[in-house]
């Protein structure tokens, strides 16, 4: 009985750590860094942190706090590479059994994306409520319902792009022995170019000009700016169009890679 109790407690601790705390460390550190940076700028300008609108790259300190709060919530909704185990299925030759099913193999993975999104919507809502209860004066409160819906659509479209990228990288297991480093590398690129470390709109103009064309920007920075009221419906429509184009391109690439991979698959295993 003691053994079973210990096991239950341990796995619930694991769930809490994985689902609620995971993804909050980097934004927290980012907040401390920004506080020090704005403190330095305010000291140079002879002002106090948070009391005067010291602006760095078009962002004031209170806006940055809201950005970090938004980042904590938005990151919960972005599809994570750990949610797919396609590479393992390929390595171990277990794909064969799925190929005789009356529906496409990819539908199973789309179901996993749907399951992930539904669970993470609940987790993100929980995290938002906890944050709002803990610091209502600083927490990001959406400017309108329309902005919330627009931001939600962009995040989910971007998340689906991530899902497609991770699927493609996993499918490279038809050719490669190990793919996890590609997945980690992809996240470094997506995270940085989306604004997980610095808001893209705070970066130098050349960076912003290039990165604002990619879906990561419209998945992380832009939705938070929509929620804050810094971007409007026109920006949303532009972003939705850009992301939709990239989503279609990624899906075509996904189909091509999958077909090529399956053609050389020998199904050793199950």
């Amino acid at each position, binding site marked *: 009985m003691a053994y079973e109790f*210990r*096991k239950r407690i*341990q*796995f619930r*601790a*694991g769930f809490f*750590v*994985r689902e609620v*705390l*995971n993804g909050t*460390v*980097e934004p927290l*550190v980012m907040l*401390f*860094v920004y*506080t*020090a*940076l704005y403190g*330095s*700028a305010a000291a*140079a300008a002879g002002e106090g942190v948070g009391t005067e609108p010291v602006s*760095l*790259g078009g962002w004031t300190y209170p806006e940055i706090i809201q950005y970090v709060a938004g980042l904590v919530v938005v990151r919960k909704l972005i599809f994570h590479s750990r949610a797919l185990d396609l590479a393992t299925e390929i390595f171990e030759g277990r794909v064969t059994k799925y190929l005789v099913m009356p529906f496409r193999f990819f539908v199973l993975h789309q179901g996993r994306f749907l399951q992930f999104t539904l669970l993470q919507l609940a987790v993100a809502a929980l995290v938002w409520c906890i944050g709002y209860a803990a610091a209502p004066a600083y927490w990001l409160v959406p400017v309108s319902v329309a902005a919330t819906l627009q931001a939600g659509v962009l995040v989910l479209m971007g998340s689906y792009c991530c899902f497609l990228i991770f699927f493609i990288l996993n499918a490279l297991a038809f050719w*490669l*022995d*190990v793919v996890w*480093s*590609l997945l*980690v*590398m992809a996240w*470094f*690129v997506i*995270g*940085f170019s989306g604004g997980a*470390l*610095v808001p893209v709109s*705070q*970066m*130098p103009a050349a*960076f912003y000009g290039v990165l604002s064309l990619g879906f990561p920007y419209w998945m992380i920075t832009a939705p938070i700016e929509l929620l804050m009221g810094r971007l409007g419906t026109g920006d949303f429509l532009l972003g939705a169009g850009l992301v939709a184009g990239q989503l279609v391109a990624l899906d075509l690439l996904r189909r091509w890679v999958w077909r090529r991979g399956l053609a050389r698959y020998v199904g050793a295993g199950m």
Partner: protein
Amino acid sequence: MSASRSDQPGGGREVGGSRARSGWTLGSTLRWGLAVERQYVRIGFVRKSQFRVEFVNQVLMDLCFYAAFILTFEILYGLGGEGALTLGGWSHEEMRVYMGMVFVADGLFMTFLGQQWHFGQDLKNGNLDSIRVRPGSAAFLYFFQRFSPEGLTNLLFGCGWLVFALSGVVPEQVEPLTLLWALPCAAAVIAWSQVFLMLSYNVVEFWLLNSDVGHLVSMLVTSFGERPLEVYPGAVGRVLKFVLPVAGMAWYPASLVLGRLDAGFALAYPLLLVAFAVLVTRVFKRGLRRYESAMG
């Protein structure tokens, strides 16, 4: 593994008895450790020679991390114009040195301690039987077993960045002769801190099995240690210096090299790191006694 009999602690005279009886001395322990590590390095190169694309991918992966890190701070310091902003009192040039220490710490960790990511799962699956040997150190045998050539490559890149960063502060801020003693001391402190910090956030897995707490603490420790401690509120900074001495990863080494520490603190802090190591080792040994092969 083919460590010779004479490589064993005590020259292989007796295994399993008390340390005094078996002739366990610091010298023989070091020789034994080096012999084992030599085999781990050999196995690491053999393994990676079979996965050459993976080797390149992992090098690129860490370079992406370094590039994102460097770009982030270059952008942040650039926001206020050249030389206008500091981060907790760290100038742009000093921060580059700090980043160099972070990369060296990361490189050392990835080269020697990559096995720690599997500790929770191995503990759950009961895979630790083979490393519970006497008189060798179970922690050493387990955590050092995955030598990574790609980590070593990235360590060299990290050292390259550190040299570049130091060129920005030598000789204006740091005397070249100072580097002769400060850099080896900094490297020793980084290695020592990485080993015992890693051990400290893995011991929790003995009590909270497969909980990911170890991974979260690892991420927390690494992320906090990657920024100068002055950016954190006073209490958090003190915890990171004196309770969980993350400061040893990059803050203390960078501050030592840049001459930002007073002599008393510079001499006393390594003693704290030694005390921390003794404490963590004892807790690890106690945790290991809870291990019963099949804990899952």
